[in-house]
């Protein structure tokens, strides 16, 4: 029933997707493509994956009615608490699934890219769990701004390798991970952290993250008597938490799907990561999608305060949802995200990740009616972002004085 918005056999979502990879990666990607669907749809995989999601990651994640936030925005706002998962974000859903797949395929060495470090930590975690070698590529800029996560990965036994090209962020880390895979085709499995990359990754990661909306169906039914909220809001860098939150609602057109990109200093400032807003069709990391690029087809360096959203592309599923009008893509600036993070913290006692704060930041921009039911996916928690929040404190002194 969801077929209209899922990829076809060649990994295309409308005009987007595909597998634009050099021959050096062909066997790796092809061997994954041949087996992934049958493995993740098998009963044995499902059972083991489910068991780990429940007993290791701590699922289901709660659906929390945020009363004070609801009052503020004049609608019924629920928070999907992916921040409460083990390792602190939705990323663990995907890495647990992919490491089981890697084990099925007999691979012993895991590589990953990471921006904010959440995917890196989630990968290092499952590698420790499964006793596999782990190498995480991370842009040097991100290593500096997300240091706590670097230490966590190292404590978990992963080797963190700095990516030194470009702006030294997520895009460059992904380039380095792909180069590693080219050089180590035999024993290595690449755990991609988002719904990006060549087919079958966008589909694979979306399926593994779809547990978020699978839970939403029954949690909504229990809370509201209907499976369908009016809105689902999620932040989008590559777009994995959004893909997971949207997945089971793609064909329910009464549910408005809102993706929120990071506009950095502002969409028109040149310092932005809002791909749908400023991008053109292009190819990045093996996939045809919307892409921030110059007239000459060079990929533009993105900017966002949030390392997890600092990416010049977007998953092909989202390019297609935007192109077909099924989902709407809004954006939020650094300032708006910081403000939203402080707001959630003070209203509900939840410190969100900077990434998730972007989703919260558009609540005031939606034209909400009192009876509207809104689900915001809080994709991760803010521990890793404390330095950015502390630095920004002075900005909000006036309206965020301590409450009594």
């Amino acid at each position: 029933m969801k077929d209209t918005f899922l990829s076809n056999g060649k990994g295309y979502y409308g005009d987007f997707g595909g597998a634009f990879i050099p021959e050096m990666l062909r066997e790796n990607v092809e061997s994954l493509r041949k087996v992934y669907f049958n493995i993740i749809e098998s009963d044995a995989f499902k059972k083991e994956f489910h068991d780990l999601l429940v007993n290791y990651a701590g699922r289901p994640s709660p659906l929390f009615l945020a009363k004070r936030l609801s009052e503020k925005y004049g609608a019924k706002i629920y928070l999907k608490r992916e921040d409460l998962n083990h390792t602190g974000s939705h990323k663990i859903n995907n890495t647990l699934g992919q490491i089981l797949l890697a084990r099925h395929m007999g691979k012993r060495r895991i590589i990953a890219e990471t921006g904010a470090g959440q995917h890196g930590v989630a990968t290092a975690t499952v590698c420790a769990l499964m006793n596999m070698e782990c190498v995480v590529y991370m842009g040097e800029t991100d290593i500096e701004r997300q240091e706590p996560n670097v230490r966590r990965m190292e404590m978990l036994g992963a080797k963190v390798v700095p990516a030194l090209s470009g702006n030294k962020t997520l895009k460059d880390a992904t380039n380095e991970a792909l180069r590693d895979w080219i050089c180590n085709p035999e024993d290595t499995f690449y755990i991609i952290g988002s719904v990006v990359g060549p087919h079958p990754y966008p589909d694979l990661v979306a399926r593994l993250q779809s547990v978020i909306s699978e839970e939403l169906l029954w949690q909504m039914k229990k809370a509201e008597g209907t499976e369908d909220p009016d809105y689902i809001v999620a932040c989008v860098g590559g777009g994995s938490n959004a893909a997971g939150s949207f997945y089971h609602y793609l064909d329910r057109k009464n549910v408005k799907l809102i993706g929120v990109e990071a506009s950095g200093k502002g969409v028109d400032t040149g310092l932005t990561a809002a791909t749908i807003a400023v991008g053109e069709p292009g190819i990045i990391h093996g996939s045809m999608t919307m892409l921030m690029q110059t007239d000459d087809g060079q990929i533009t360096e993105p900017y966002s305060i949030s390392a997890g959203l600092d990416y010049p592309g977007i998953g092909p599923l989202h390019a297609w949802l935007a192109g077909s009008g099924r989902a709407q893509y809004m954006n939020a600036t650094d300032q708006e995200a910081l403000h939203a993070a402080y707001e959630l913290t003070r209203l509900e006692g939840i410190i969100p990740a900077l990434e998730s704060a972007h989703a919260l930041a558009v609540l005031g921009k939606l034209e909400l009616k009192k009876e509207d039911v809104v689900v915001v996916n809080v994709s991760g928690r803010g521990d890793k972002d404390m330095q950015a929040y502390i630095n920004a404190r002075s900005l909000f002194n006036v309206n965020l004085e301590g409450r009594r």
Partner: protein
Amino acid sequence: MNRITELFNSGKKDILSVYFTAGYPSLNDTFRTITELEKRGVDMIEIGIPFSDPIADGPVIQKSGSKALLNGMTLSLLFEQLREIREYSQVPLVLMGYINPIVRMGIDTFLEHASRTGIDGVIIPDLPPEEYIEKHQAKFQKAGIFNNFLITPQTPDTRLRQIDEWSEGFLYMVSSAATTGSRESFDEKQLDYFKRVSDMKLKTPRLIGFGVSNHTTFEQACKYADGAIIGSAFIDAVSENGSLAQKVSGFLEAIR
């Protein structure tokens, strides 16, 4: 006739193809690098279109590409720089680059420019043969431009035969599981792979690339294939101080 076909039909042995990055070391070196290489007996020249995110390239070619982009190199500028190249040079010319700048320019416009410039072929690592055959082959054929495919040690025999069947120009034999870059010699495993492919008696001529950097590796490559491609080692050579002519001739003396 396409100059690539002419070259391989000429019976010439130990073909040397040299790769360089357009707009490197200086923006306007492109034209002269070609004429200098041809003058000194290079059989084919691959002109690299610099790209911001070259995932199949090692550090040397990455750096040359970043520098070329900083110098102001673009794909449309490249065609301008090469506008009169066929009045001065008849060496087979192959454009090598990633798919995004080409798609951004538009395949039709790209082919129109390439054909007018006298380009003989392309190598586009991240455009898989299947995608090319299905969506672009007809246009390339009409423009008379060969798309040359890559094969690697991981390419299974059945696929290798299929790619051979699809090929018009030459096969770019990637020497090992690696990104581009120089190595001192080939190991046993690589030589086995060269021999295995050589024994398959493919219809398409083969050039070995990635890791060919000196006289030894060039000679080894030529033993198992029609010739070899040198990229990173040449980029290293032109990165040194000195005149372009000196650097080119110094480099070539060390290879052949």
